[in-house]
């Protein structure tokens, strides 16, 4: 009897375990298939009232907007009108009061609409808890922030008939209202940040309120999330052939100095700066004027100030890692495929004393404030040299498995010179033809007879102690890594450069 009981229990246990394991195997309805959407909003509005009890709800705005539009309704189906006549950006409410009210608004309204649509026979949205509060959403956001670059801005100027006050305003503290300030227009983000400050709304809020309202009123421009935020749509924005220069009374050429307060202590010569030329390469003013349209020195003091967290002027201009500093932006340019061939070998951010005088070439700072550089003086011509460049060089000192390399020397130098001459930045810093040699003939002075590679690069690998590669590696890495950095694919196999020796294995 006891034995029978034990057997029964064991069988029951086995059955129970197998049932449990089956229950755990839920079929993954969206196995591996994740969808990217630019209109994804994760509804977590209750998080301002405390920790969330359930997961945020992935909500597709464009999907719902389309459906609502098809029914012949507009944004007011979900967004109430405020006292000022604008649409509240919150769902079915003008303000957040408390947790229960907010939760009820979402639950009642969302579910009511979903149930109604389902009853009329159309496919509808979820109605159960787990279908909205998804534990593992398969949708992920592909939303990209919108950059108002000079091209897009020019198109808006056209649309607004050149009336800047359509969009640009300033807040008058005295009158406590928004006024237009002609000639003083600044970027929206100069005032509207990521957090609300007193009665100043966030950039996210105002951009949606102003931009969409205007687009809706004039029936032009996107009104849905994806229209602005979808990366594909952003790429397909019409590019004007020539973007007219944005005129806000900015200088064409100017001498950069420290601020008026600091000029007495400033010792470095001023920097002649071609503002107009730099405008052509910056996609928006904010590329450099990241906080305000004033001069850099207006905010960046010459010396670090105790207690204030402002970056001193030297760092603002020379920080290599910064995307905004002069040196940082030039550094990034050095690693474009056209330049990286030579610059990839040079240590990043290496500022030689030679480089200082390439920029600090103006008059002393106190003189510079009253003068303007001549435009012509800022255009550096490409300086031809008298060096005789050999047309073909035979590199055959290591020839063992392969024949020597018949190196088309002049073709390489001419190509590099063409690339350099086409870049104002490159010409300004190394616009001398003889400096081109330094790309390959490195660690030697410029001249007609640079030393042979083997003077420094030994025959056999020196081992881990030295980091100067031996000849074999020096040749291969110098040529191949340059081609790789410059994205040249023509020399892709061994025999592209040297023929195999007949009889070699």
């Amino acid at each position, binding site marked *: 009897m006891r034995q029978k009981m034990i057997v029964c229990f064991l069988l029951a246990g086995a059955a129970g375990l197998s049932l449990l394991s089956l229950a755990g195997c839920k079929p993954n309805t969206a196995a591996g298939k994740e969808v990217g959407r630019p209109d994804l909003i994760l509804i977590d509005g209750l998080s301002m009232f405390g920790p969330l009890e359930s997961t945020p709800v992935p909500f597709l705005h464009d999907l719902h907007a389309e459906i609502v539009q098809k029914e012949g309704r507009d944004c007011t189906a979900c967004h109430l009108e405020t006292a000022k006549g604008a649409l509240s950006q919150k769902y079915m409410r003008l303000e957040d009061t408390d947790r229960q009210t907010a939760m009820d608004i979402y639950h009642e309204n969302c579910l009511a609409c979903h149930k109604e649509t389902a009853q009329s026979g159309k496919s509808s949205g979820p109605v159960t808890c787990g279908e909205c509060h998804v534990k593992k959403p398969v949708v992920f956001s592909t939303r990209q922030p919108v950059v108002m670059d000079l091209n897009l801005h020019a198109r808006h100027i056209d649309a607004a008939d050149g009336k800047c006050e359509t969009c640009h305003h300033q807040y008058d503290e005295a009158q406590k209202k928004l006024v237009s300030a002609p000639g003083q227009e600044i970027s929206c983000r100069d005032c509207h940040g990521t957090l609300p400050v007193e009665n100043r709304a966030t950039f996210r809020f105002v951009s949606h309120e102003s931009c969409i309202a205007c687009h809706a009123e004039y029936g032009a421009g996107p009104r849905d999330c994806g229209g602005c935020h979808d990366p594909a749509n952003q790429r397909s924005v019409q590019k004007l052939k020539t973007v007219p220069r944005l005129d806000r009374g900015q200088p064409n050429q100017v001498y950069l100095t420290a601020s008026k307060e600091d000029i007495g202590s400033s010792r470095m010569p001023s920097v002649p700066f071609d503002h107009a030329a730099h405008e052509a390469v910056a996609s928006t003013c904010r590329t450099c004027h990241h906080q305000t349209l004033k001069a850099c020195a207006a905010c960046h003091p010459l010396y670090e100030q105790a207690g204030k967290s402002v970056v001193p002027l030297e760092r603002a201009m020379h920080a290599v890692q910064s995307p905004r500093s002069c040196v940082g932006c030039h550094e990034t340019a050095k690693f474009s495929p056209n330049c990286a061939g030579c610059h990839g070998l040079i240590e990043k951010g290496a500022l030689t004393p030679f480089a200082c005088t390439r920029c600090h070439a103006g008059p002393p700072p106190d003189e510079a404030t009253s003068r303007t550089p001549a435009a012509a003086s800022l255009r550096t011509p490409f300086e031809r040299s008298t060096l005789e460049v050999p047309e073909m060089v035979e590199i055959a000192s290591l020839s063992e498995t392969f024949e020597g390399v018949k190196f088309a020397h002049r073709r390489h130098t001419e190509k590099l010179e063409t690339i350099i001459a086409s870049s104002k930045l490159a010409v300004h810093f190394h616009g001398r033809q003889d400096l081109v040699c330094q790309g390959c003939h490195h660690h030697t002075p410029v001249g007609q007879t640079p030393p042979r590679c083997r003077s420094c690069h030994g025959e056999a690998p020196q*081992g*881990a*102690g030295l980091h100067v*590669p031996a000849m074999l590696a020096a040749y291969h*890495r110098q040529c191949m890594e340059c081609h790789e950095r410059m994205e040249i694919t023509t020399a892709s196999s061994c025999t592209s450069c040297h023929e195999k020796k007949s009889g070699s*294995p």
Partner: protein
Amino acid sequence: MDRRQFLKIAAASGLFVASDASGLVYAAVPPKELFGVLVDTTRCIGCRRCEEACARSHGLPVPDPNDASVFGTQRTTGTSAYTVVNRYAVGSSQIFVKRQCMHCNQPGCGAACLVKAMLKIPEGPVIWRESKCMGCRYCMVSCPFDVPKFEYDKAIPKIQKCDFCFSRLQAGLKPACVEACPVEALVFGTRREVLEAARARLVKRPDAYFPHIYGEREAGGTGWLYLAGVPFDKIGFNTNLSTTAYPEFTTGFLYSVPFIFVLWPTFLFGLSRITRREGKNETQAGKKG
């Protein structure tokens, strides 16, 4: 037992244990520094001249370096290929990784080998000695890098793996693969020098490398070290290895065997002798009295 006898027995058993234990000490202090090699995968161009040179130097079938079809699969070392180069696609770039024996500081294969056919010689290479091997293949089981390969299809099978060209090293030459590399992706030196070179590269060009030297501590440290520009698990490395050397997992147990089989019996025997003796005296005393 009297005191003299007790001391004699204790001394004898102590000596016995000591001599037995010293014979089992595994890592003797090497007379020279261990050699090592740094494999910089950011430099490797996948030309496979290392495979070619290795095969030539060991009399194995020579692969054709120009045949790129081998990159279709991830290969492991084989009985006729001591080293292979694999290609991995990471993001938009291709990364080539050379695989071979890692020549661990404390090789698991050496500890697993019952007959010391797998041996780490003082210069650093872990070699397989044909004269001692008995074909149990425990070395294959114990290797975390899946390196030793057994010739199942041969009548007289051998274990085949990279031997760090130890005969060339003893002649003062560099390993064949290191010499053949046209871009010096392989750097040879003492393990200390090679590790310093690896660290120097990480400091000098932090943007070009993933900040880790594979083999510095994995499995207790290996002779062949790797640098890469991407995380190592993306290019076929096992990143779940602990830093404990494989022999250390078992030495604790193994070293306690002589103590258990020699010292305890001796001690217990001595104890039983003492207690039995005393009992005998008592009965005699009882008989008399």
